[in-house]
């Protein structure tokens, strides 16, 4: 197996705070990796550094063989990494279709002439993408597919997550970063969403996923491998069983045994 994403010695400091401390993190083609750790351990920061939202203080990030260290978020997106956010970042007043199309940016024609003058060709492109969006959201929830023209603000959290994942997937990324997709959801909803994610992996060939998650049950069920962070350092890596047995991990989650 070849490494799709490789972070070497990745470090990110905010003033005196070391949010990421020389982290080595590799994701192989086709696997689902769980990124776990207590609050404030640097999981989201890792995502933000990889996707170019924060510049790293040190270290390298390579994706599919090319160096994307410190690249702009736009470049990272074009290279084939898509993500969702811990606190849903959808455009609430826009329709479901519009939100999904924001994620489709690189596959849409943004030329002035095309958009303003060639309205027939534009309409054809809209129809094509509409059908595609219906197909994608249909994987998650067929009921959503009929409501593409409604504003996102009217949907419950679980549907918003689905829409956000669709927005990330529509551009056919090779790597999907899911930042705590179950945040703010009930157990039942979380289970549903995880089924969806497994389904997506089945349907979308060659998709690699990194998921940040707190619920161990989910990690156990969907991931092939886990990486544990604590205070910005990688403290453990391996299968769920290995990680769960590791004394350092138990300490990080439960505190030091008296």
């Amino acid at each position, binding site marked *: 197996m070849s490494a799709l994403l490789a972070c070497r010695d990745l470090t990110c400091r905010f003033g005196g705070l070391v949010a990421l401390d020389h982290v080595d993190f590799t994701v192989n083609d086709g696997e689902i990796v769980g990124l776990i750790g207590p609050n404030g351990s640097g999981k989201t920061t890792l995502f933000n550094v990889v996707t170019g939202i924060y510049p790293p203080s040190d270290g390298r990030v390579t994706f599919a063989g090319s160096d994307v260290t410190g690249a702009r978020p*736009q470049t990272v997106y074009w290279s084939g990494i898509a993500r969702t956010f811990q606190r849903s970042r959808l455009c609430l*007043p826009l329709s479901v279709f519009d939100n999904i199309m*924001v994620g489709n940016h690189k596959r849409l024609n*943004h030329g002035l002439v095309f958009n*303003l003058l060639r*309205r027939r060709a534009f309409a054809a492109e809209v129809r094509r993408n509409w059908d595609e969006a219906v197909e994608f959201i249909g994987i998650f929830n067929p009921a959503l597919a009929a409501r593409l023209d409604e504003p996102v603000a009217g949907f419950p959290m679980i549907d918003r997550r689905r829409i956000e994942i669709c927005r990330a997937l529509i551009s056919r990324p090779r790597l999907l970063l899911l930042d705590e997709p179950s945040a703010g959801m009930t157990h039942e909803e979380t289970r549903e969403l995880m089924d969806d994610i497994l389904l997506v992996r089945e349907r979308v060939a060659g998709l690699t996923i990194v998921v940040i998650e707190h619920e161990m049950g989910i990690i156990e069920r969907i991931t092939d491998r886990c990486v544990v962070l604590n205070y910005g350092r990688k403290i453990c890596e391996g299968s769920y069983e290995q990680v769960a047995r590791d004394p350092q991990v138990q300490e990080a989650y439960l505190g030091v045994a008296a």
Partner: protein
Amino acid sequence: MPARAPLLPAIAFAALAILFGILFLAAERERAVAALFVVAAAAIALAARFGAIDRVRASIRAHESLFYAALVLGLLAVVVWFHDEHFVLLMVTTSLLLMVAALGLTVQFGFAGVVNFAGAAFLGIGCYTAAVVTKYTALPSILTLPLGGLMAALIGSILILPVLRTRGHYAALVTIAFAILFKTFLEVNDALGGPQGILVKPITLFGWNFNQPIKLGPIEASFYVNYLVFAIILLVLALVVVRRIDRSWIGLSLDAIRLDEIASASHGLDIARWKILAFTLGNFLAGTAGALYGHVLGFIAPNNFTFGDSLILVSIILLGGIGNPWGVVVAAFIVVILPEKLQIIQEYRFVLYASLVILILLFRPQGLLPRPLRDYGLRAGRSA
């Protein structure tokens, strides 16, 4: 597919709107004006009560081009009706040109979220370009329109860097500073007429001087008809461009960067590129409208382009509904015509605008005509 909505409500609405416009413009006495206003408000409330508004809306959506054609025809009817009344024609022309400038602000603020409190300055750049071009060069005077737009876009590009690097209140401050600087610059610049102002020569097209009255047999029409017809053309063009932008991937990208820059950047949108496009296009529209406005006024001075005038443009988009081109049309009509009709409030018109804006922000923050969801101009894309 649902049955196509009938055409009648859209046409009836267009006819009523135009008829109301004519009555409103023709009303001389303040009581008549006030009565018309009350009647209109009551009619709208009743129509909403009985679902007529939804029917009209569906009908307009189904027959958009016909509805627009009816409106333009109606405007031409207004021109014919008031063909010899200078003042009415000037008022309508002014409101149409402010609509074009406010459409520019709609692209900037309503779509891309780039605040611009210097709308009147960009309008003024257009005016002064018209004055300078006709005074110092032998270029055909009709070229002042695109040149005014280009100048506004060009001078606006000075502001691009600070506007891109600041956000919210700070970006607003940058444009406010520009608005004030612009007026001061005009006042001290002798080549541009200084505080006294400068003459703008009329447009001449194929030997036809726009400041000549039009004679058709026994009928003599005011020379303002020339300008009004021109303003109608300009407004239609601006509306088409702005509507098409709204219903395109470009409009979607502008909305996305306004609503969430981080999410947009993470999906490949180049924030700076879209903000520059929106800002430049908006200034171009304001400058083009300004050039024609300069010819209409015939004489311009720095006092025509104060910060207060910029605020009027902002209040037009707040009142009409941020991001809705049709809201701009309705609001510009109200903001320009109402104070002229009600002489009592003329002196207090800034008080009127301010209270209108405050009332709108308090009770209907989405404006008189809230912006609808984007529909891309096809039957919602539901391919049957």
